[in-house]
């Protein structure tokens, strides 16, 4: 009886494999342009099967499609990894990563910089999106803006870091010839900012265009935006979001770090070329998300993930240096961090010619 049952199990397993393998091979077989992966054809594997925990920055969204693509396409399996995804709220991911409670985390250059400056060492392994895709937006009908100077006199709905937010606003305003402190700061926390603007409680909000901006477009709300990427001479570009880990894991299990980063890179490479399919993979894993929003966000981000970098994830020392300088100059940090130690490109797949920075 037992023998029969286990035979049946084996048989069904074999069937599942037989059915699954062609689909998997097909997914892998589509010619993947190598330039996302630094020309790599082989990818790192963990020395032994390893369970790792990835902690996102918040609930899953279009920023994270690469992780879910890597999971769905078996890239993590190939890398000998079993990845568990956690979605936190209001937790310092940096502290959990630094202490080794979670292995990898999604953070932002600003928070990672604060963490390092505050004695919580983390290492940035990849820039998930090559350039800052955030921006300051208003409702086009009520408060049209085209340059930062137009923001003067508006009420800004902030998320609770007035020092940083005001520094960035004021820098943008002064660059454009307007008076600093001419934007009224209102702390509104993490809420639906577009809705607050529609209710005339705030006029100006700082959003991730791939999330709130795309959501506004989908619901037919016309936004005017001052995008950070148009003012990098003024406020330096910074990586947001980034993939981080703790220095301990880098030292003790570099094979696991390389395996995870490279499998993730493959996931993002896939998402860059197949935003629609990657969005479906995310939705398959997290069906509660809004399908239109994820598809539109993934579509919007596909050209942004790598942008003009030689491969996905590539980071430059100058970006880390300029941003820590910006924080110090504006009195947000007392002293800067060691930009070279804050990140590494060493675990990314393939090889690219060194930047002439």
């Amino acid at each position, binding site marked *: 009886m037992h023998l029969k049952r286990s035979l049946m199990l084996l048989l069904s397993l074999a069937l599942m494999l037989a059915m699954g393998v062609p689909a998997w091979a097909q997914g892998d077989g589509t010619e993947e342009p190598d330039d996302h992966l630094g020309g790599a054809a082989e990818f790192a594997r963990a020395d032994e099967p390893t369970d790792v925990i990835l902690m996102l920055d*918040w609930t899953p969204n279009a920023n994270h499609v690469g992780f879910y693509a890597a999971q769905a396409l078996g890239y993590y399996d190939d890398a000998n990894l079993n990845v*568990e995804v956690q979605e*936190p709220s*209001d937790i310092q991911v940096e502290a959990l990563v630094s202490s080794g409670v979670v292995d990898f985390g999604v953070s932002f250059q600003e928070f990672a910089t604060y963490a390092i400056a505050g004695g919580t060492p983390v290492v940035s392994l990849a820039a998930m999106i090559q350039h800052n895709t955030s921006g300051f937006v208003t409702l086009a009908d009520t408060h049209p803006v085209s340059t930062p100077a137009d923001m003067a006199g508006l009420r800004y709905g902030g998320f609770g870091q007035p020092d940083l937010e005001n520094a960035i606003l004021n820098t943008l305003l002064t660059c454009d010839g307007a008076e600093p402190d001419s934007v009224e700061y209102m702390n509104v926390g993490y809420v*639906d900012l577009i809705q607050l603007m529609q209710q005339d409680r705030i006029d100006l909000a700082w959003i991730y265009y791939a999330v709130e901006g795309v959501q506004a477009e989908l619901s037919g709300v016309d936004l005017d935006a001052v995008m950070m990427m148009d003012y990098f001479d003024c406020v330096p570009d910074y990586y947001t979001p980034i993939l981080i880990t703790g220095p301990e894991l880098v030292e003790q299990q570099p094979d696991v770090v390389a395996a995870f980063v490279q499998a993730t890179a493959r996931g993002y490479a896939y998402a860059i070329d197949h935003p629609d399919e990657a969005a479906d993979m995310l939705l398959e894993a997290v069906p*509660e998300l809004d399908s239109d929003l994820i598809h539109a966000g993934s579509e919007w981000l596909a050209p942004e993930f790598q942008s003009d970098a030689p491969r996905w994830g590539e980071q430059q020392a100058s970006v880390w240096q300029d941003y820590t300088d910006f924080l110090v100059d504006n009195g947000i940090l007392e002293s800067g961090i060691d930009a070279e130690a804050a990140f590494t490109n060493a675990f990314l797949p393939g090889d690219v010619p060194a930047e002439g920075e």
Partner: protein
Amino acid sequence: MSERSPLVIPPLLRDAARAVILSLAVGVLGIFFVLGTRQLIVEAAAVENLSFHDIVPTPIEIYHAWQQYESLLLEKHIPTTMWETLAGLSIAIVLGVAIAALMDFSRLLRWILYPILVVSQTIPIFAIAILLILVFGFGSGPKITVVVMFCFFPVALNTFAGLQSADPELLSLLRAMGASSVQTWTKVRLPAAMPSFFGGLRIAATYSVVGAIFGEYITAQYGLGVFLKRSYSSFRIDQAYVAIIATAVLSLLLVLIVNGVERLALRWYYTSRRGGWRGPGIY
């Protein structure tokens, strides 16, 4: 009493019928109240040019959202939340009664424990989120702990008050008859504490599901809290209301179960009261 009623209906059945009729009446009234309020707000919002519809969905939209995620909710999210709730509530009952007994047992312990109990209720969950993860990891441990933190307090305090409320005359009578302290406890104090214990348990049951959702909000794979968070971050208010209503229904169910258990356990208490059984709580 039974002479007056020509039909002899078993009391338990009569009580149950009354509870059902009352629940229905209150339910219908509640629905009218909610719909009326909603209409008022819609009109006020229209005057103020606010997009109220984005804040509160229509019942039909909520129903469609429920249909869309019915199997996921019934198979994953609700069982997860219920497991955490029931496990946490059970631990909270044991812990609460134990603390109450300790406080009743010794004046010194009372002095030590009381401030700790109060302080335990002032800790914001998010402030200790990292600690919870460090100690319990990512499983159901942190969520159950949050439920326990929400629930043990009313149980402990109410049970303690009940233990203290034992009839002093009865106690001195037992002492005069040479009863041991264990006997006084089991025969007078514990029974005297039962009604307020159930009062505390009812409060605990009311908060327990929300406790689990708070715990899941920190981070989780499944549960109504995860569903709620994902819905909000997808700007899906209709989905969020599914979670809100499910939470309300589960909490209500738990309270009704507590009432039912109290009914069975404390029949002696209420029947001995003047005016007969009025049932626990409101109904």
